[in-house]
């Protein structure tokens, strides 16, 4: 019971029991679960079938890809043009991607600074630097949303796409450095793929952020 007072907890249990029961249909949520698992299963099947291709074909592919120019435009985050903007402007200019940051902009438990990164005159990345005070204490996070559907990739963020641990739709790792959990993640999602950094005294902080995205 999480250390709560038994008498009060009993009173609230009865209180909630008499409240209006929600009339909602879970069909869509169930379908979403199935879709998420299918996406993960497809990726696993694709990985298996690629692995089983003959060795010479794999060598030829490596050779061809080594000669071909990279299909993804790379840029350096450190030297990209930056523009600090308010959330209201972010919403106007990048409605779909800005939704990623909606829970943080609205919450009284989070502070946020937003930056638009551009290269060669084209916006490529949205960044939110967050200070969050929640059930996991205070911690910092940086959430970056790709605006280019993968056509542009910051050099500094490329390693995120090959992080070790693989969940459904995401890759992540957490290291324990100087008494803090330092996490990175790459999340494939509608509304823009995300690159996430979290520093926290609690290991669950990454999961908390990923649960919101």
């Amino acid at each position, binding site marked *: 019971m999480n250390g709560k007072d038994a008498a009060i907890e009993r009173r609230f249990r009865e*209180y909630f029991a008499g*409240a209006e*029961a929600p009339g909602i249909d879970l069909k869509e949520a169930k379908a979403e*679960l199935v879709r998420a698992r299918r996406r993960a299963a497809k990726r696993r099947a694709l990985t298996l079938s690629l692995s089983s291709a003959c060795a010479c074909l794999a060598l030829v592919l490596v050779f061809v890809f080594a000669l071909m120019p990279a299909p993804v435009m790379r840029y350096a985050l450190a030297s990209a043009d930056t523009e600090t903007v308010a959330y209201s402007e972010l919403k106007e200019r990048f409605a779909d991607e800005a939704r990623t940051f909606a829970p943080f902009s609205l919450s009284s438990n989070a502070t946020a600074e937003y930056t638009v990164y551009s290269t060669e005159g084209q916006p490529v990345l949205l960044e939110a630097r967050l200070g969050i005070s929640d*059930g996991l204490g205070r911690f910092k996070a940086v959430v970056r949303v790709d605006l280019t559907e993968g056509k542009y990739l910051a050099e500094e963020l490329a390693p995120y796409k090959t992080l070790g641990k693989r969940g459904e739709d995401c890759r992540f790792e957490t290291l324990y450095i100087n008494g803090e959990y330092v996490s990175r993640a790459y999340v494939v999602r509608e509304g823009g793929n995300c690159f996430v950094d979290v520093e926290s005294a609690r290991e669950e902080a990454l999961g908390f952020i990923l649960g*919101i995205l």
Partner: protein
Amino acid sequence: MPPLDHGQLNEMLCDLKRGNADALDGILATVGRRMFALARGIVGNASDAEDVLSESFLKIARGVRTFKEGTNGYAWVMRIVRNAAFDFLRKRKRTATEDLDAFFHLTDERYSPDRREEALLLEEALEKLDDGERRMIYYRYYLDFTVQEVAAETGMSRSAAGRALLAAEEKLKKLLGEI
């Protein structure tokens, strides 16, 4: 009405994580009323609260891969509802508030006649708490925050939050005639 079994809820979340979509029915049956009460307290009406709840279950289905066994599943679920409610208000350009009055006046809307009398006693007692005390009760008994989480939410030290919670609980129990 059986007590809220945190272990049982956590098992449902783990079951959901393994791909059993029917676990969503169990979650709705176990904590749906609390989720609905929280949503309604934030968005202000039952119809919008149902939309928030539908969205919350979508987010639960989508995000369950990140749920970690052994952590507080109830708090995880309620956090999703809270954030979904805030997001709902933001999309409709409405100001986000957590109206403590709305959380503690469930009997104003459709409420079971059998439980109404006891419910009104609780609501009456809650009204006699000051805002700070009611907020402590809200964090602890609605959102299932730990003392540490209450401290983080309010910016208090852990010990101060613990004392404030205890004081609020003692006052409420006295008002309810439990001590």
